[in-house]
């Protein structure tokens, strides 16, 4: 019932948005959510947009995990006496 995947708002008409998930489009009512703009990512539940994805928070969560990864890598490498300079190949690769 609950679509856990965020949908992108590509059209808004009279309180109804057209949202897109990987090329599949459907309508989502905006009756339960204010301030939705084109290009926003929203969570849609049973035909209603119920939440906007906070993009800063989304990036921060992933960044925090990458920092953990760096820390873990650093530890392993130090233990192995390998050059501990670890560079993140491209932190924004997925965005």
């Amino acid at each position, binding site marked *: 019932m609950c679509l856990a995947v965020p949908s992108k708002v590509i059209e808004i008409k009279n309180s109804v948005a057209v949202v897109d998930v990987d090329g599949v489009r459907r309508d989502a009512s905006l009756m*339960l959510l204010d301030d939705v703009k084109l290009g926003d990512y929203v969570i849609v539940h049973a035909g209603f947009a119920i939440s906007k994805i*906070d993009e800063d928070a989304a990036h921060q969560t992933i960044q925090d*995990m990458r920092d953990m990864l760096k820390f873990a890598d650093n530890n392993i490498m130090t233990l192995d006496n390998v050059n501990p300079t670890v560079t993140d190949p491209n932190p924004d690769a*997925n965005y």
Partner: protein
Amino acid sequence: MALKYVSEYRDSQLAKVLIESIKEKIEALHSSGSIKAKKRLRLMEVCGTHTMSIFRHGIRSVLPHTIELLSGPGCPVCVTAQKDIDAFIELSKQDNVILTTFGDLMKVPGTFSSLQKEKADGRDIRVVYSVFDAVEIAAANQGVTCNCNQANSANKTNQAKEVVFCGVGFETTTPTVAASILMASERGIDNFSIHSAHKLTPPALAALMETPATQIDGFILPGHVSVITGVDGYKDVFDKYKVPSVIAGFEPLDILKAILMLVTQQISGLPALENGYERAVSQFGNVKAVQIMNQVFEPADSVWRGIGHIPESGMRLRDSYKSFDALKKFNLELKDTPEPVGCACGQILMGLKTPEQCMMYGKKCTPAHPVGPCMVSSEGSCAAYYRYKGL
């Protein structure tokens, strides 16, 4: 195409780090003696979508065996009492009714029948994706008198049909049903009504904590219920029971992160109510949705399958919207009916049993011939076990 805000949360390298970190912390807990040698850490997810995600991504298999993940009362269809299922079936039998429902309810066995059987017997029962669709079906079946002068259609009357919607679901769904009632009210659509078996999550958490046998060490709180309630929605329950609680999203990294946060709380010995799904859940929740829900509905006592009566855990229509109450409209009453004998759904929903501990699992009860709702809904524990464990 990589899905935005999805593929990042399935990164296997990051998952490995989280898993390692969970393992380290669990070992630390055991060696410090804070968890006794044989005791397992019992964490309960209270959302059917989490249950599915945990199975789909094989999360149980990568965790230390001392962490036990329990599926709680988070599948809307599974917690619906037998008497409400019977009421939906009864409503479908009324004259001139189109019954509309989410698909999951179709196969749930009532005491004597199911919606699927009734449909096969010719009742007009339609599966809808959104309650929105149900309102549109009502609008299209209001019955209009046409006075147009064209020869063949003069004074034709389309007979009105009553459209009834089966209201099941938690805080995520109830506002959508409330919005549809407001919409029907504004548009003068008076042939639309609902039977509300809606439930509230925090009172169920309290009921679980009041049952000592459940021995819950932490809650993985439902992401999309929390979108509506906000972190604050759980404050009262948390303040009372002080059980570690983390709101989680639905991707593998979200769930692993929530588990890591719960284990970290165990180590610190300081239970907390934390938000691990910041990209979608705020402190206050979706204020507009809550306001619309509370405009139309009010809390009322409710019966949960297998758990029983929980005070103020359901949502009923307020007096000003009683004209949308299907039972009233058709003069029907809820009758207490017993649950299927031998079905352990109730104990499973409370984390007291696993599906395999039910005598009927995989024998008398399968997805093709379900005995209880936990085997029907794709979000139900028994159905998830059956599908992913291959028995």
